């Protein structure tokens, strides 16, 4: 868990780890990943934006990410059930509410199996029960040997082994 006030650099830290931006100083060292594969291909990066196309249906969006991200995990329908969007697969993603869009973005983590999850404010717009459900998904991921780096303001219960990194405000 990465916490800290707005502007402390939580998102920047996540983007640096994801390889989206380069750090001005210091370096990122990732132990335990497969050295033969690009680090970015072993991570999920869930940013502020949901990376959905409104003109495509819910299932089409998810199927696209399942193919493009590779290492298939759950089937599309199962993942939608898991995040509480079961039966909505044929709707265009444009009609979803903000919370439902977030759930669909989270479903992306499930359709492709990757050890490292980088989550930037993952629970924005989620209701209380969806937050609890998401925390359970996170705990399940940790139990299977995965790693989560989450920048968040909301209290997320990722189990007893969760550690907190508190970033100070920019003075």
């Amino acid at each position, binding site marked *: 868990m990465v916490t800290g006030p707005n502007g402390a650099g939580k998102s920047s830290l996540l*983007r640096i780890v*994801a*390889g*989206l*931006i*380069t750090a001005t100083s210091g370096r990122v060292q990732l132990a335990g990943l497969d050295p033969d594969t690009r680090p*970015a*291909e072993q*991570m*999920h*990066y*869930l*940013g*502020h*934006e*949901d*990376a*959905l*196309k409104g*003109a*495509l249906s819910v299932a*089409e969006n998810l199927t*696209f*990410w399942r*193919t*493009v*991200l*590779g290492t298939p995990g759950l089937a599309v329908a199962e993942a939608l059930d898991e995040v509480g969007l079961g039966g909505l697969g044929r709707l265009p993603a444009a009609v979803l509410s903000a919370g439902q869009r977030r759930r669909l973005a989270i479903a*992306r983590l499930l359709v492709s199996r*990757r050890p490292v999850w980088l989550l930037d404010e993952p629970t924005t717009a989620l209701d209380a029960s969806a937050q609890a459900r998401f925390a359970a998904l996170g705990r399940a991921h940790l139990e299977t040997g995965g790693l989560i780096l989450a920048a968040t303001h909301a209290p997320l219960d990722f189990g007893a082994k969760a550690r907190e990194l508190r970033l100070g405000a920019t003075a």
Partner: protein
Amino acid sequence: MMAAFLALVRRDLALAMRAGGGAGLGVVFFLSVVAVVPFAVGPDLVLLARIGPAILWIGAMLASLIGLERLFAADVEDGSLDALTGALLPLELVAAAKGLAYWIATGLPLVVAAPFLALMLNLDPAAIGALVATLLVGTPAVTALGLIGAAFAGAFRRGGLLIAVLVLPLAIPVLIFAVSATGAAVTGPVPFGTPFRVLIGLALFALVLGPVAAAAALRAARG
């Protein structure tokens, strides 16, 4: 990797074909440009036949660039591009896949429409054949070079102006050799093959350079 490449091409094609996708925009622009020229030039059929290939090529080139502004900008804004860095594709192939889908949705209709528009400009069959061949080879080159401008436009807000400024100079050689190849097919003095082979060379160069440069631009702008 191939599956991911094709999935990205399919997604971009689906987005282009659906409402608001703008697949028809280029061909409608092409049609408008070519349709108004005879009114401006006047009913001089000999003159039209002489300047016809140039007009068709200018129309096709501008029509190929018209939708490029949103090509990467849309993916940057909705976070898709960030998520795509984790895809099984290097950024160069992401750019190439998007370029291919863009060409199928925008460039290919131009090639198909060109013979019909050429009739309006009084081109003879040999010139029409040469024109279609040059468009088939040249529009992918223009699109590939356009990727560079599109990448900058995606990186900077309101970067549409950049596309014209950055891409048109790069695309000028393509225009020169495409139009001269079409002219050569009709009047000579050099055979059609000579400028056409240069055009093919330019196209191959652009197809390699475009995606690589676009990926570099996207990376540079992000960091």
